[in-house]
C-alpha cells in the first residue's frame, strides 16, 4: 500500500492550489482501480495458471495485465475495466504460449539441448504431503486436479468462454467483449466446453 500512497501523493502534489476537487477525483479513481484489481487478481491468476500450468508464468502474466490496464486504460469508465482486463490477460497468456512453442521448436533442433534444464520439477513441490488430511479435503483436491486438467485440455476459445462465464461470472456480452467475438460464438463455445467437460469428468462431485 506504500507505493499506492506514494503515487497518490506525487500526483496530488503536482496539482495547483485551489484544485481540491481534482485531487479528490484522482484519489477516488485510484482507489476504485485498486479495489477493482484486488477483486480480479486471484481469479485472473487462477485462469492464467490453468492455461499455462506454471505458477511463476501465471504471476508474471497477471502483473503485466494489471500494469497495462492501470497505465493505459485506467482513465476509462470502471464498467469497461473487467472485459478489458480479461482481454489483456488472454493476450498475455497467448504470448507466453507462443513463446514456449517457438522455444520448443528451436530447442528441438539443437543437438546440445539439455532437456533436464527447465522442465525438471521442484522435488520439494513434488514431495507427497504425509500429514493426515481430512477425506473431504482430499476428495476436493482430486476433483480440482481433474477439473483443472480437463479445462486445460479444452480448445483455447472454449476454455476462455468457460472460465470467463462460469468462474469469473461475466455475462454473455462482457465475455464477447473480452474474447473479441460475437455473443453467439460465446454461447456456442461455452456450450461445447460444458459438454466436453461433462463427457470427460462424468459423475463429477465436489
Amino acid at each position, binding site marked *: 500500500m506504500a507505493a499506492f500512497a506514494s503515487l497518490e501523493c506525487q500526483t496530488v502534489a503536482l496539482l495547483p492550489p485551489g484544485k481540491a476537487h481534482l485531487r479528490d477525483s484522482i484519489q477516488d479513481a485510484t482507489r476504485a482501480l*485498486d479495489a477493482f484489481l484486488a477483486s480480479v487478481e486471484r481469479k485472473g491468476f487462477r485462469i492464467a495458471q490453468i492455461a499455462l500450468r506454471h505458477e511463476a508464468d501465471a504471476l508474471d502474466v497477471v502483473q503485466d495485465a494489471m500494469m497495462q490496464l492501470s497505465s493505459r486504460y485506467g482513465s476509462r469508465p470502471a464498467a469497461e475495466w473487467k472485459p478489458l482486463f480479461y482481454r489483456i490477460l488472454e493476450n498475455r497468456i497467448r504470448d507466453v504460449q507462443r513463446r514456449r512453442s517457438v522455444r520448443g521448436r528451436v530447442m528441438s533442433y539443437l543437438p546440445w539441448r539439455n532437456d533436464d534444464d527447465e522442465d525438471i520439477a521442484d522435488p520439494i513441490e513434488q514431495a507427497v504431503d504425509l500429514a493426515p488430511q481430512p477425506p473431504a479435503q482430499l476428495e*476436493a483436491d482430486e476433483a480440482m486436479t481433474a477439473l483443472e486438467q480437463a479445462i486445460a485440455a479444452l480448445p483455447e476459445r472454449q476454455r476462455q468462454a468457460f472460465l470467463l462465464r*462460469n468462474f469469473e461470472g461475466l455475462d454473455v456480452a462482457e465475455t464477447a467483449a473480452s474474447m473479441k467475438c460475437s455473443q453467439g460464438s460465446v454461447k456456442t463455445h461455452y456450450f461445447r466446453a460444458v459438454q466436453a467437460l461433462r463427457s470427460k469428468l462424468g459423475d463429477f462431485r465436489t
Partner: protein
Amino acid sequence: MKAEPTDEDSSEFERRTRVLLLQSADELSGAVRSRLTQARHAALSAPPARAPALALRWLPAGAAIAAMLALLVVYVPLGKGTMENPVTNAGFDDIEMLTDTDSVPLNGDQEVDYDFYEWAAAEAGEGGPAPAVGS
C-alpha cells in the same frame, strides 16, 4: 442405459465446477497472495502511458508510402515501358538488310547483264562497232 444430460444436470454441473474454482482461488498460498498484492501496487504506481505524438503516430504509414514511392522510381522507367538496347538489336537489322531482295544488288559485276547492253548499243549505233561497256 445412460440418460441424456438435461439442462438441469448441466446447471448442476456448472454450479459444482464454479464452487470448486472459486474455492481454489480463495485457497491460494500466502506467497502467491503476497506476490499478487505487490503486483497490484506496482501497477498502480506505474505512470500512465501517454498517447504518441501525432507525428509519431503517422510515422509508420509515412515510411511505408516513402518506400513504395522509392520502389516505383527504381523499377518503373519514365516514358517507354521497355528499354531498347541498340547493341543487341543491331544484329537483327543487319540480317534484314542482307536478306532484302528488293534493294540494289551489292555484289557488283556478277549481276550485270552485258548482252543487254551490247544489244542496246548495237541498235543505237546502226552498224558501227559497239562501244565498250563503261567507256
